[in-house]
């Protein structure tokens, strides 16, 4: 349902993505790993066009987003995203953070949106935090609100951009637990992460990136026992 073909991204003169081609199968979980600066986040952000590719095509559900910008917000509804820095709306309570897009994008009425928001906030274990503002929440709680906010839109795909990189180890576990529980809903998950153990646990496929390119897309078990690229071997040996 998502395919990227020859996607490149150049900032000024630095190439951050070099002719990347990849297809994501529905209902699978992908973990994108690799060292910092490999282009992992940029690849993820090209999927919902938060980053506009310098060349190449991004096709989601048959729509080439690079060409068909008018359908962009329509497609973005189907792609949820969770950010490293949470990016909650600072002037809205947890409840309203989740309700906002339901009302503005899905055109739900307030009562329905609220019911829906409470449901998803409960799912991430925050039913007791509905009326708290972002600044009153811990990092882990903020990220869970952000996850609920994305989930409430019932996306077919979830993009996680280093969802635990800004969190301490304890909060990291609390957020990872929530993400693991999501696996059952039948969404495609694409996760950029530095938590290798977590990637090993949840992912069906590992996408290994280095130096602006995808070196391999390998089923998780095989990747960790027998990676194809020598760079991945080196990367994994540095992990212990």
């Amino acid at each position, binding site marked *: 349902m998502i395919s990227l073909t020859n996607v490149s991204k150049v900032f000024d003169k630095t190439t951050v993505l070099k002719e990347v081609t990849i297809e994501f199968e529905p209902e699978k979980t992908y973990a994108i790993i690799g060292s910092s600066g490999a282009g992992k986040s940029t690849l993820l952000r090209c999927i919902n066009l*938060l980053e506009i590719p310098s060349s190449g095509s991004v096709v989601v559900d048959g729509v080439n987003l690079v060409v068909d910008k008018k359908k962009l917000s329509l497609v973005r509804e189907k792609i949820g995203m969770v950010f490293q820095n949470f*990016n909650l709306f600072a002037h809205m309570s947890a409840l309203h953070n989740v309700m906002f897009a339901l009302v503005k994008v899905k055109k739900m009425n307030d009562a329905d949106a609220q019911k829906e928001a409470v449901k998803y906030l409960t799912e991430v274990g925050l039913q007791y935090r509905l009326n708290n503002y972002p600044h009153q929440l811990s990092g882990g709680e903020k990220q869970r609100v952000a996850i609920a906010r*994305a989930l409430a839109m019932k996306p077919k795909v979830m993009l996680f951009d280093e969802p635990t990189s800004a969190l301490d180890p304890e909060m990291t576990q609390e957020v990872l637990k929530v993400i693991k529980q999501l696996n059952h809903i039948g969404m495609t998950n694409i996760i950029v992460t530095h938590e290798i153990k977590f990637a090993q646990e949840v992912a069906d496929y590992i996408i290994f990136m280095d130096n602006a390119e995808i070196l391999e897309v390998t089923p998780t078990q095989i990747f960790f026992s027998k990676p194809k690229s020598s760079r991945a071997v080196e990367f994994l040996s540095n992990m212990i």
Partner: protein
Amino acid sequence: MNLNFEKIIPYVHLFGSAILVTLEVAALAAIGGSILGLAFSLSGRKGSPVRYLVKGIVEFFRGTPLLIQLTFFHYGLPQVTGWIPDVMTSALIVFSINSGAYLSEILRAGIESIDKGQIEAAHALGVKNFDITFSIIIPQALRNVLPAIMNEFITLVKETSVVSVIGLTDIMRREQMIASVTYRYFEPSLIAMMIYLVLNIILSFVGKKLERALKYD
């Protein structure tokens, strides 16, 4: 010491209508200025087709004295256009654009203070630009720059005193009139200043209340 407030007392009530004139100019110009300021700040952003025009207007109105703007508009322009506006119209137009120019810069700073991550998050949810602007950016920007906006309104109340030069009988003009019939300057000036001071203390109190009401962290 040569003070005699008794001589002034028969005239003090005349300040009543003058206060209303000052308030009318200030309040309407604050409304006009806010609308224009918002319009300027939004249409002056990167990628807007009219942004150089907007920047030109803002620079012009910030870079020339208000007093000349007012006399130029009221006495100078009719020479060219043939249209003679009444004094209130001239005052409102000039003050609205002038404070709009200042407010647009204040709002621009507020808009730029919003962290880009929230805007990205909204885009990722499929929220349209209109809703992002008016439901995410503006409410937070306003909160952040409210003290500066109140400051601008206070300045506006004081600056309305220049309308006396085109003949509007505001507080300042009334003070001059009373001084010229009584030959006393200290007393009417002091009263006029006190009136401005009280108006602005009230305004600043309202501002503080508003700040507290909009606080979310």
